[in-house]
């Protein structure tokens, strides 16, 4: 049965077990298959020779504007940040944008609580000032601002520490729950390392640091997730650190790392780990290419995508944290694929 947007929003974030989830996804995704064939001519071209729906290769969105809406319905054009010039272009109508933002809210509230927390953004205010086309980094921050209150930007425009702001934030909120957000490499290099260098530590009593954008640069600097968490604890005190994985081609869907170090699929999305050449699913605990599905890609044919990222599926419905759905880890990008993504824009 096909669900309306309202019904979609009713679903529990991590509460659908395999059977229920697969039948729900199947009906939504099959609907989207035919919807996009009807409304997006290139998508129809891509699929017409095949009995089974092929996932679209993510870099296609850099080369073609694949959209299932008329130009006048376009509410927003999202672009990924890319240094090499080629960026993904994702076309959203008002309804899709609204649905995606509501689902994102619901997912994040699971981790942050319904109360909006005082927020420290580990970036410069400058980053979100360009308004016309939004980079994924700006869009990420812009989107997150909604989940906090009293936002403070921790960095100056030249990406150095803005100590007066940081001090003020700490003085005001050291004893209450806080929400920090930033891109992994920026958090690491411009914030945690910079604080270490000037021998500054601030022990917050409670809070969440959400960070994402990939580990590529972190791996180059040989920083592990564990070392990252340890450094955060030393500098910032009792802050729970959660990595996340997501992509501009799947806005609204966010995979957040649980207490046991695994990324979790929310109800509206699924992942499979597939063989690079054949796209056949690989067994659990085997590294392969990440293929994603999302029921939120309504205005563009992004509901089944073959990413350029490598990951490993660790299980389904039985993570020690208790959340249902598949849980996985990301090992980075396929070697030498074109540079894509968020934190890669900086430095």
């Amino acid at each position: 049965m096909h669900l309306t947007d309202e019904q979609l929003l009713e679903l529990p974030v991590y509460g659908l077990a395999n059977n229920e989830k697969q039948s729900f996804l199947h009906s939504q995704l099959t609907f989207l298959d035919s919807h996009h064939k009807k409304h997006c001519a290139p998508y129809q071209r891509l699929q017409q020779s095949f009995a089974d729906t092929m996932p679209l290769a993510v870099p296609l969105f850099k080369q073609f504007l694949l959209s299932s809406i008329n130009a006048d319905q376009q509410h927003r054009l999202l672009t990924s940040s890319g240094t090499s010039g080629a960026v993904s272009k994702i076309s959203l109508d008002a309804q899709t944008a609204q649905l995606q933002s509501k689902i994102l809210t619901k997912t994040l509230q699971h981790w942050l609580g319904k109360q909006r927390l005082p927020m420290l953004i580990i970036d410069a205010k400058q980053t979100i000032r360009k308004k016309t086309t939004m980079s994924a980094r700006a869009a990420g921050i812009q989107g997150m601002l909604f989940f906090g209150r009293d936002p403070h930007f921790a960095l100056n425009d030249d990406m150095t520490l803005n100590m007066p702001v940081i001090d003020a934030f700490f003085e005001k909120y050291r004893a209450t729950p806080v929400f920090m957000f930033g891109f992994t490499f920026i958090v690491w290099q411009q914030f945690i390392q910079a604080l270490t260098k000037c021998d500054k530590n601030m022990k917050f009593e409670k809070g969440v640091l959400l960070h994402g954008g990939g580990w590529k640069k972190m791996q180059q600097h040989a920083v592990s997730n564990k070392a990252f968490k340890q450094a955060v604890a030393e500098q910032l005190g009792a802050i729970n650190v959660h990595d996340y994985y997501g992509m501009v081609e799947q806005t609204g869907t966010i995979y957040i790392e649980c207490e046991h170090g695994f990324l979790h699929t929310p109800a509206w999305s699924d992942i499979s780990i597939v063989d690079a050449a054949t796209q056949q699913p690989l067994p659990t605990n085997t590294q392969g290419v990440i293929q994603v599905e999302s029921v939120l890609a309504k205005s563009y044919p992004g509901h089944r995508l073959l990413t350029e990222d490598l990951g490993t599926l660790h299980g389904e419905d039985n993570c020690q944290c208790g959340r249902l759905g598949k849980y996985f880890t990301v090992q980075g990008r396929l070697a030498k694929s074109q540079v894509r993504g968020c934190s890669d824009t900086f430095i």
Partner: protein
Amino acid sequence: MTPLFKHTSLQQLQGNFTQLSPQAAPFQDDTVADIAAFSQFLLKKQQSNAISALGFWCRKANILAMKKHYMALNHSQPRGLVFHITPANVDTVYFYSLLLSMLCGNCNIVRISDRSGEQTYQLIALLNEFLSLHPYSVLNSLCAIVSYPSNAQDITEHFSEHCDMRIIWGGDDAIEKINQQANVQHQVCFPDRYSLAVIRLSTNLDVDLAVTRFIRDFNAFSQQACSSPKAILWYQTSLELQQLFWQALRLALSKDESQFSQTAKANRLYHLQQLILLANINIQAIDKYSEFMRCELLTFLPDMLLHHQGDGLILSYQLQRLELNKTDKLQTISCFGLNASEQNQLATAAIRTIALGQALTFDHYWDGVDLLEELSC
């Protein structure tokens, strides 16, 4: 020693060129002897098929054959300083034009792409090893190899301004960009080209030989060399024999460690989808294997291959008549099972027709250009 500099500034690069001597006489005895020695050195190393192929190509007998060809040209002078700009996708090709240029007596600056593959660096390491054993070799005084980022335009401008000739190993975009940055009066460019194979299998006995030869053309450089076949056009071949060919190809490719990286394998789906949207291909069937992806087409035009990016995607098509639309981008047709007159029928459609298995064999006459003639005057 041939240095591999990695600097972004022009000044640092310049200082290192003092080793370059003025040009030598064409096919001078010591140049011939030194390159022949380098050939033996490479062959003994057996580092990779591509490097051994290079070693075999520059053996003494072949150099002497080229010398004969050169003498017939009635040229007597080297060009002077030749600036080579090499491709990222075919790791060893720059060395062929470099050796030809040295044989003609030119002094050379070779810019290797900062996106170059592993074999590029292996070759430079081998050259350095050779030069440490033969410090007085002309190879030392006739070439310098440099690397710098593609956005360091001033370095390209500098070399272009000071060279007597430039060689750009494509593609079209790079050639256009470099020409905009700095014009050079005498230059040879190798633009984007594509290639295909026409195969006729008559009996089961043909299958293994065709597979062995096809692999030679298909497998190297992630199928990205301009002369690597991107499509197989079947001529008067039963579907059963074609089936046997695909099976044997899989088997043969699976025996060796894969030439295609995981990225290449994952790219095949992307490349296929690009072809559907850019070249408007119509697909009848598709088979995805770890070794390659086969895509059977309902219609075929050589132009479709312009958007083909290699990585182990083989287009397959049933050719009814030995006729192909003429296009100046079709470089090589590798033929198997065709007689001379049939091969002739295809000759007008491409820059060269050649036996299957020979597509990547380098010749001084390359892509319709006689490099020996261009590199001298």
